[in-house]
């Protein structure tokens, strides 16, 4: 099996990219194609010709039994999980090293009084009963010190942008005129996220919030032009939101839940 390249050395779509594009047309998932592929085809007659030629061949074939598409219905593009795993592994290693260092410096030592926490230059400001916990019981060495949190490392993977949706953010699709007022792209949300938009034609819309693993974490439908959601249950990270009507995707936005 050969590697997945989208462009030839001459800058046109590879056969693989043509097949992928044709599948996108068959499945009406063109918006999930990589942005550079869509942009190239927009300008290139030669690639349009190659796509249309194959699309004419498969247009009426029945794809209904083929099951999930290996690219469009994947939670991640193929190289993504590897990258994600590496990131998580790196985060785990950093946390592990941190824990070892903390254990080395902070573990109660029977020979030394617990004075490391006390600022050297301001000992008088610290009340003894607060800075000096009960003497450690040296007969119970299995009592571990409190595990320090490393939130930035723990949530690092949640802040990886998702290429599929990055290409779609802030684009307007098809002919429905939707003006999105909030949230702003990349807005940091600390409490409630307020979605508000303006469609020229009244319609029922569906709002879906997805994490950067493409999991839908919340969704609702409304005929209003605004809706709010309390984000306190969401982990820190990047979130994408989709505004759809019954027929199509209208808008993709993005917001951030910062580390609290």
């Amino acid at each position: 099996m050969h590697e997945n390249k989208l462009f030839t050395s001459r800058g046109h779509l590879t056969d693989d990219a043509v097949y992928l594009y044709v599948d996108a047309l068959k499945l009406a998932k063109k918006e999930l194609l990589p942005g550079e592929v869509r942009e190239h085809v927009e300008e290139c007659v030669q690639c349009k010709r190659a796509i249309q030629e194959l699309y004419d061949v498969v247009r009426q074939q029945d794809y209904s039994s083929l099951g999930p598409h290996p690219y469009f219905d994947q939670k991640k593009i193929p190289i993504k999980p590897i990258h994600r795993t590496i990131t998580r592994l790196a985060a785990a290693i950093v946390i592990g090293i941190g824990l070892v260092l903390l254990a080395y410096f902070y573990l109660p030592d029977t020979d030394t009084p617990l004075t490391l926490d006390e600022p050297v230059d301001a000992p008088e400001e610290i009340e003894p009963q607060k800075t000096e916990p009960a003497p450690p019981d040296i007969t119970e060495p299995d009592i571990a010190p409190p595990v320090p949190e490393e939130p930035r490392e723990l949530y690092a993977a949640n802040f990886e942008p998702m290429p599929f949706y990055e290409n779609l953010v802030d684009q307007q699709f098809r002919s429905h005129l939707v003006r999105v007022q909030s949230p702003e792209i990349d807005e940091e949300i600390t409490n409630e996220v307020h979605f508000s938009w303006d469609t020229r034609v009244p319609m029922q819309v569906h709002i879906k919030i997805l994490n950067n693993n493409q999991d839908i974490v919340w969704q609702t439908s409304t005929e209003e032009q605004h809706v709010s959601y309390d984000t306190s249950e969401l982990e820190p990270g990047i979130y994408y939101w989709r505004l759809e009507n019954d027929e199509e995707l209208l808008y993709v936005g993005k917001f951030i839940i910062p580390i609290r």
Partner: protein
Amino acid sequence: MRSNDNDIHLLFNDPGGFVKEHQKTIQYVVNKFVYTGFFTYHDRDEVVQYVNEKLLTDKIDKMQEQYNKNYYVVTYLSKIIHNLCLEYSRKQKSHYRETTEIDISTIDITEDSDVSRNIVIEEENQRLESILSMYNKNRNRIEVYLKILFGIGIKEDDILTLYPRANSKDIDTLLQQCNPASDQDKKTDKELYEALTMFINKYEKKQNTADAVRKWITSKIDEIIELLNGSPKTANYDKETLKILFQFRNKNLHFNASG
């Protein structure tokens, strides 16, 4: 039912079974060539046999090597079969092509026209839809410009889709020019290009001439016609027949193209 996972399994573990499983796909693609007059009906079985032999002796190995599992196997296979049909045609020098190019201008699309003709139009409309969708960000622009030039008429929403900040006065002016109340008020192509160019220049802050806009639109029309005609050529579109298809697409069935 055949799933993509099953296709992948057969392709890599049971090539004979894979080809057997895809006899319908082979026949489907070959039939398309027969339908468009590339082969005669009598050639059909021979072409199917040729495709089967080539797949088993040569192409399956290459498919195993090349397939990268990011798209459906059947899409890839269809392309291989399509190429084998062209290869067979070249070897046999069989270019019948006598009567089967689709010429939409010969089709009578009225409310009482028969169902099969409407199916042909609908299929051509689907092809036009796929072509327009490839224009990505320019798609709406092309559709609106063609509506204007083909005399289909536009609505306020069409303009606002392209130019959300257009003011009401400018919109009304353009609508009046593009949607004439009577034939007497109908603008010439030159007048339409001029009106459109003024609008584009104002809201895109450009300095285009009407001729430059005309050339851009003409190039897009030529591209769409070329793509509709197919490769190998299976249809016979020109600007007039594209206009007919476009009118159909926009649900304006007030025409009879049989003459």
